């Protein structure tokens, strides 16, 4: 039970860092834990980007690469869209309505292992519940002075996560990128690189929905799901 929960926490940690991208850019040199954390939280409510994920699985001799894009809106939720090596999207709407979109376009509600994210960590993250994360993690600048490291403090978190680390890079060629490394207690390391981040100045849910439709014109149904999840449930 807790193994599952902790892994959900791990996933939430990754998502959390993705959401945090714009704020890290805004203040990369926070000195205190609170300040670092506050800076991690989204200051912009609507943004999109691309990701490159590399997963090193203990016991598997080759790394697993995947790529995709995402869109986050405070008013709608998150679309996490994997394009390679297969197509799939996960739609995080709110604490009770989250879906997996399969290759054929069909939707499956996320249940079981993902419940914890929906109900706890993920929702707290979206709400910007600073206190929750201060309670759960020790947040500090890493030794290299360029990365921010989160170490779980509670025994509960320690059962699943060893550490989460992220680093911001800014280059002329790639622009702003964020590298996220999550190491779990089994030694499995997931690297996520997020780049091509673009923030949007949108007012209200309708604006967010229209932006979503622009980004995912071929899959506008996803945006519909984000806007009216209860309708999909029915």
């Amino acid at each position: 039970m807790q193994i599952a929960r902790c892994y959900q926490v791990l996933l939430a940690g990754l998502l959390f860092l993705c959401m945090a991208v714009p704020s890290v850019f805004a203040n990369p040199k926070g000195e205190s834990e609170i300040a670092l954390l506050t800076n991690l939280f989204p200051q912009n409510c609507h943004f999109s980007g691309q990701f490159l994920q590399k997963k090193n699985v203990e016991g598997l001799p080759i790394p697993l690469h995947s790529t995709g894009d995402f869109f986050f809106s405070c008013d709608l939720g998150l679309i996490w869209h994997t394009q390679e090596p297969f197509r799939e999207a996960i739609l995080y709407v709110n604490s009770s309505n989250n879906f997996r979109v399969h290759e054929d376009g069909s939707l499956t509600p996320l249940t079981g292992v993902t419940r914890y994210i929906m109900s706890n960590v993920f929702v707290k993250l979206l709400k910007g519940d600073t206190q929750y994360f201060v309670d759960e993690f020790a947040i500090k600048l890493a030794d290299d002075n360029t990365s921010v490291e989160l170490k779980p403090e509670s025994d509960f978190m320690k059962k699943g996560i060893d550490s989460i680390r992220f680093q911001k890079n800014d280059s002329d060629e790639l622009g702003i990128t964020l590298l996220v490394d999550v190491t779990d207690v089994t030694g499995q390391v997931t690297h996520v690189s997020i780049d091509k981040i673009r923030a949007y100045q949108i007012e209200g849910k309708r604006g967010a929905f229209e932006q979503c439709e622009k980004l995912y014109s071929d899959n506008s149904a996803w945006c519909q799901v984000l806007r009216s999840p209860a309708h999909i449930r029915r």
Partner: protein
Amino acid sequence: MITLLTRSIFFIAVLLSVLFFSFNYQHIRIDTNLNDLNPEKIADVGLKSALKTLSQDISHRFVVVVKGNNTDQVGAASQALQRALNALPGLKVISDQTVQQNYLHALSPYRFNLLSDNQRQALEDKSPQLLANDALRKLYQLGDGFRVIPFEQDPLGWFSAYVLSQFDDLDVASDTFSQNRKNVTSFVVSFSEYPQSLDEQESLYQLIKARETAVRNKFHVSVLHSGMFFFAVDSAQSAKADIQLIAVGSIIGILLLMIAIFRSLLPLFLSLSSIAIGISFGVLSSLYVFGSIHILTVVFGASLIGIVVDYSLHYFYHYLSHPQDERIRGRTNTTLFRAMLLSVLTSLIGYGALGLSDLLILKKVALFSCTGLVMAWLSVMVLGPFATRRPIHARQAALRQIIAGCRAVFARHPQRLAVTGLVLACAAGVFLFAGQAETNDDPRRFFHVSPTLLEQEQKVAQLTQIYEAGRYLLIHGQTPAAIFDSLNSMYALLGDESKSLSSVLDWLPAPESQVKNYQLQHALYSEDGVLDIFTTRIGLPKSEFTDLKTAYKEAKGKTLDFTALMKQLPSLPPLWIESENTIYSFALIRKDSDLNKIAAVSRDVDGVQYVNTLANASAALKAQRVTGSQLLLLAYVLIALMLAGYYRKLSTIFLLLIPLTASAITLTAVSLLGQSITVFHIMALFLVLGLGMDYIIFAKEMAAQRETTQQAIMLSAVTSLLSFGLLAFSSMPIVQAFGSTILIGNTINFIAAISLFNEQKKSQERRPHVR
């Protein structure tokens, strides 16, 4: 009358018991198990053993809840308390991590036999290509693809997914952390070694309390606990106070009485010796038959002091009532023996009748009391002649005055007293038969539990209990397959309501299902199966997982049974018990379930029985109360026959009207005083009968020495009333019921005995040693 052989046996027995108590006193186990109050109506030996195992397991665990305003504080407090309790001797905290690890360790070798419903469905519906795609997708997904065992042993992640879904569904973790009560955490503690003696229990209880207090103060959290152990300790504390009150009160009363009357150490020595010998043999017989002595037996047994001392009093008064020349010639021996024998027989009938009850505790009291009475009686008969070698003097003047006072009140118009008694008895009978007396068969009301403990218990239940208390399904069969078949039928008939049940099926599939699951997994591990497709797509050679394929082949025909699972999961409640060639399994029922439906469906499935322990116990106790009343009537009939046969006079049967009247008035009185009539009141009436007949027979047998006899009866009644009167002030309702019934009933017996036997022909009494 008492032969040399009897004397020799008595002395050897006393010597052996002295040796036993000298060298083994530390091994005397005082039992505090409250289950002894449950009626024993289970004839099935195997079932009885299974229920005992279950009950013992439950008794040997307790739940601790830590509550606070801050999640971190609660977590830290819980961890600190777990460490502290784990450090205590005999205690072991059942951590969710250990349960999960053990469960995983037990399942892992049999992973090819395990499939969830969804996995079975997928294997039946999907092609190998689709299944390989799904496995690959999960491996890539963010936050998915977690393996509970090394990747090379479960590359497709099927076993990991199965285990994680099990962890989600099962309440394997004691931690109740959830979004609704994030500031509450709980854990289960088991006894690796249950403290046997009261002192050990009390000592451990104090240690637990100290650890809880330390954590409470350090982390500013509240700590609650719940478990049979705490109730047992609480009951033992109450019982100890009762024992002290009764034993010390009785002994002091008797000491004062004997010294005041006889002013000699010899009679006192005989009385105390008979008490010590009687109680010792009561303890020894209990240890021999039951292996321990129950705390409530000691409480009831302490009241035996008042009965046992009667034999010494009867003996001395018999001595005093006969002239020295008669005693020398031994003429009095027959009369003495007959009176003493009848006296002990009536008490034995009274106490022995308790053994007819199905309540184990009453059987224990009966055994303790009867063996104690016999040995105490024997000690008086054997040691009495030694005590009376020197002349005994009794100060009877004061007693005469007291009796005269009593008689002035009650015996001035004996017929009027008798008629009044009979009228009151009739009125009481009408009151009782009209159903005006409130009855109680709820075992929970038999005890006095500290309000703090009860409050904690209720709070803990609200926070942690997810199953119905005392309600479960009992499944029994000859083979594992029969158990699983019954459970499967039950689940099928219940439909969606089957989610209300938690049984062995949630932990492990039936052996037959395991075989089917193994066959289904052939699609995963066969040549060019799902694993090969997955391996190729991931970019690895097929040979990468050869060992796994070999392991699959080698696992053929090997299934995991529940007994083996339980061996690796000792913290699991005994949901599967094999006893007397039968398997018994228990299915727990979640709260807020449709109990009527579950009960109704259980009646349609062979080998399944819906059990409501509280209702069953209440029904059985009611049956005990009714049966006890019938047996009491039978005892009256038997004593009537004995009286008629012994005295060869039918009218002697009317003597029974005295205890009968006493009983009817007593029941009405205790009812009017606010007590609900329980099986313990009824059982106490056996003693009212026994003691009443004791006085009456003594009064009748010794009618020639009326005054002396009345004094003996009065002293006897005073000692009995002292003991039982002290019982009436017990904090435990059952002890109080017993004591108050005998106190009132025996008082009436006493009044009748000294007031209604005055018309006997008065003989000239000679009291050479009376001053």
